[in-house]
């Protein structure tokens, strides 16, 4: 039985941007349908954190909060089809305005052994540990790139992991330039983490070459560009920065720019009545996300955005500094060999893909990107390694956006 809900606005995502937006929309008299696919609000960054602000919002009579629900299809930008994680309930939600606060996921780059149990995303391992994953006393390596490695290290250490080291691919010089240009608030954040991470080996200019092990991870082969050495460990958290989540925006037909949802000065997308805020408009961190959530809500309410302009410009400048400070070295695109799997769902190797010039051929010939994750992992990889276009018309985004039981799509 499909349930129908209607409101003034639909907000998709309950991370910092979504929370900021809903906090503004409700007191202004709007009714809101708030959808998030995680069982608890907070997005990735505030996963598992106490959020008194959200607890207060939840009680609001004009809010329909739908945690554990995913958008699977759309009639239009103003009518979305949702289903709950348990696959028990289908919901049709309607509103004249839509805010996409879709967040980001990790950029994964393939290397031999990356599919072994024991290898996780760096943020992935942090998320798993916040969900109660046993890590106490286990030997953990973090590798890849970006501030998330530090945040993940802090969480893992707090959970009792034996952290062997953080291997950051960016060279020391780029990191020093990045740190020197930090605004004061960000510096404090970094120092706070630094204090919690004291005594931990942080090695810039190093990256993983392969994960070693037969049926599970046993060691990681690392390099600093000069020498190679194997580091025995129980778990590897590896991630190479973040990528905006754009699938729902693509399904609706929103224009993209540089892999993020393209937005104007009022955070409006290319579609009328559809706004986007936070990491899905470009990677810039939690402060940018909170600010854009508030800005998008103000725009949806027809208010001016002048009070936000200067702070937003600062956040966008930080985003640019982040991108250049942690730019990926070319060696990382050479890690996968012909046998390395690129598509984890359908077990398609780099060698099997190199014969094809674009997505369409690859899908027809190898089933790459046609498994359960619908190309979310292999899509960005093929774009980076093979130059296949990633956005619509490349991989092609189609409903359902998540694997769902067929009955979810049957109208009643």
């Amino acid at each position: 039985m499909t349930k129908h809900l209607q409101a003034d606005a639909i907000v998709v995502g309950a991370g910092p941007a979504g929370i900021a937006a809903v906090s503004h929309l409700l007191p202004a008299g709007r009714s809101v349908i708030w959808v998030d696919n995680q069982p608890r609000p907070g997005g990735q960054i505030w996963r598992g954190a106490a959020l008194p602000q959200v607890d207060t919002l939840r009680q609001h009579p004009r809010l329909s909060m739908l945690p554990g629900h995913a958008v699977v299809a759309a009639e239009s930008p103003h009518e979305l089809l949702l289903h709950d994680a348990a696959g028990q309930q289908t919901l049709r939600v309607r509103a004249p305005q839509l805010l996409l606060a879709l967040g980001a996921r990790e950029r994964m780059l393939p290397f031999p052994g990356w599919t072994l149990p024991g290898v996780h995303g760096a943020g992935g391992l942090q998320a798993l540990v916040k969900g109660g994953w046993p890590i106490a006393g286990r030997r953990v390596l973090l590798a890849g790139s970006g501030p998330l490695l530090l945040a993940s290290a802090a969480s893992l250490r707090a959970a009792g992991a034996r952290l062997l080291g953080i291997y950051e691919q960016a060279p020391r010089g780029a990191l020093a330039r990045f740190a020197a240009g930090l605004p004061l608030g960000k510096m404090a954040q970094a120092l706070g983490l630094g204090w919690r991470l004291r005594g931990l080996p942080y090695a810039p200019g190093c990256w993983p070459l392969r994960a070693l092990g037969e049926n599970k991870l046993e060691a990681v082969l690392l390099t600093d560009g000069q020498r190679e050495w194997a580091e025995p460990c129980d778990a590897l958290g590896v991630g190479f920065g973040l990528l905006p989540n754009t699938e729902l925006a693509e399904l609706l037909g929103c224009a993209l720019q540089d892999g993020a949802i393209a937005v104007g000065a009022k955070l409006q997308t290319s579609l009328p009545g559809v706004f986007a805020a936070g990491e899905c408009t470009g990677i810039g961190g939690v402060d940018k996300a909170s600010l854009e959530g508030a800005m998008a809500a103000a725009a949806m309410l027809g208010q001016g955005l002048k009070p936000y302009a200067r702070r937003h410009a600062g956040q966008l400048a930080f985003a640019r500094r982040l991108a250049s400070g942690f730019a990926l070295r070319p060696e990382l695109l050479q890690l996968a060999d012909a046998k390395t799997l690129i598509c984890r769902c359908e077990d398609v190797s780099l060698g099997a893909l190199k014969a094809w010039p674009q997505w369409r051929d690859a899908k027809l010939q190898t089933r790459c990107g046609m498994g359960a994750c619908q190309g979310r992992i292999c899509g960005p990889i093929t774009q980076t390694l093979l130059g296949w276009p990633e956005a619509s018309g490349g991989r092609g985004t189609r409903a359902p956006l998540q694997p769902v039981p067929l009955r979810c799509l049957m109208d009643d």
Partner: protein
Amino acid sequence: MKIIINGIEAEVPAGVTVAAALAHAGHGATRRSLSGQPRQAFCGMGVCQECRVRIDGQPERLACMSLAVEGMLVETLA
């Protein structure tokens, strides 16, 4: 609390995800890939689909996105 994994009762901490519960119970894999490789939760946030298991008879549930509850029946494909 107790959940049942592949027909065997397992004691796991309360309030954890199904992915974490499986790891506590010593299950190193949630599924086998098409070519028979063991796979385990990778992204931790509902993107990669590596942690899909059967929960209370429902196939294709994501272990990392589901909270374990007393008496839950979990079946891995590993």
